[in-house]
């Protein structure tokens, strides 16, 4: 997010404050990706955001509070991108919606490795409170996957914990890649992740047919 013009600009104080807060959040996410959670300081965040230290403390009591806001912001962006991508193909069948969601998920994380770092790697090292947010965020993707999912070919229902396992498994895989510093390559895992997500409901063969059909 860009700095605002200096001097008299006629912008409302609320607008300026919101803009500053947003800049601080973006700066924390970028700094965290560069130097890790421990080494990130309020000064570094302020410098990157071009916001003075005293203005920082108008928005946040501490680095940790800024961090929590940044974590929530990062989750909202990622989930928002997935929901939007799914909504665009709302009229289509379940596999098309799952594909759209996964393409959006992996696409955004690949394009912005700093987002992957705070959500899935370095951010998770910031203590219990953040880890609980991570887990709640992962669980919030389960209803998105489940909505409109067909019954498996063998009949019966896909048991409830299976979708949890699928979503948790994907999160674990992405986290491993992000920790290894490979977030930029996550988009390449799209076929793998899609097959993993579709298989419990469609079976392996049908899932692969859909994936190879593109």
């Amino acid at each position, binding site marked *: 997010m860009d700095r605002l013009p200096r001097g008299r600009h006629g912008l409302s104080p609320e607008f300026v404050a919101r803009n500053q807060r947003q800049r601080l959040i973006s700066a924390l996410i970028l700094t965290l990706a560069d130097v890790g959670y421990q080494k990130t300081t309020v000064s570094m965040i302020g410098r990157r955001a071009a916001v003075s230290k005293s203005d920082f403390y108008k928005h946040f009591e501490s680095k940790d509070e800024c961090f929590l806001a940044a974590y929530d912001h990062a989750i909202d962006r990622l989930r928002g991108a997935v929901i939007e991508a799914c909504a665009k193909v709302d009229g289509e069948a379940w596999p098309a919606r799952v594909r759209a969601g996964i393409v959006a998920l992996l696409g955004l994380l690949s394009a912005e490795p700093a987002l992957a770092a705070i959500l899935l790697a370095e951010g998770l090292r910031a203590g*219990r409170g953040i880890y609980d947010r991570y887990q709640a965020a992962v669980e919030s993707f389960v209803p998105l996957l489940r909505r409109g999912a067909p019954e498996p070919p063998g009949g019966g229902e896909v048991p409830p914990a299976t979708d*949890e396992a699928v979503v948790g498994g*994907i999160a674990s*895989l992405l986290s*491993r890649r992000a920790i290894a510093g490979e977030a930029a390559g996550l988009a390449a895992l799209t076929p793998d992740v899609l097959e993993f997500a579709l298989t419990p409901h469609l079976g392996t*063969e049908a899932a692969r047919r859909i994936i190879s059909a593109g």
Partner: protein
Amino acid sequence: MTTARPQLPPEFVAAHKRRRMVDAMAELCAEQGYEATKIADVVRTAHVARKTLYDNFSGKEELFLAAFDTTVADGDAAVAEACESLGDDTWEERAEAVLRALLEFVAAHPAQARLCLVEAPAAGATSAARYDAAVETYIEHLRRAAPPGGGRPATLEEALVGGTLWVVQRQVRNGGAEEALDLLPELLEFVISPYRGVGKR
């Protein structure tokens, strides 16, 4: 004549004390979480002198890591024992035996399971790395045990182990460790279904 305590070998006493401290750490973490657990709590719960604790461990983190390592080793031993009794079983039967042993271990040791699955990933960088390393060995095990066959995603075992642990930690976190075995049918299907064709159900 004074009634002397029976003389136990010093190594036995030392190992027993160590075990008590490790167990106390797990119990306290289960009750109040890692961050809130203090050395003073451990000393009181384990009935050892503060000096004894510091003779054995540099501090809270090292004690926590020892509790993690001990539990993982115990869990691995339980799984290995379950595998020993197997003969020419199919891969699916072996997978069931491993999963059952793991879930039974969780059910029998709720506090230790919580320490490993719920607390360890969030208890600092060293602990998280230790957790990740344990996950890595489970992935390697599954890769070696999985039936041969082409065309499967190279990341399948990572996602299956991650997903299984996710569901088990969720059960433990929600206070259902004792009922972990209820998850067996579902998790077994989750793990083995990607390895068989749909038509062969």
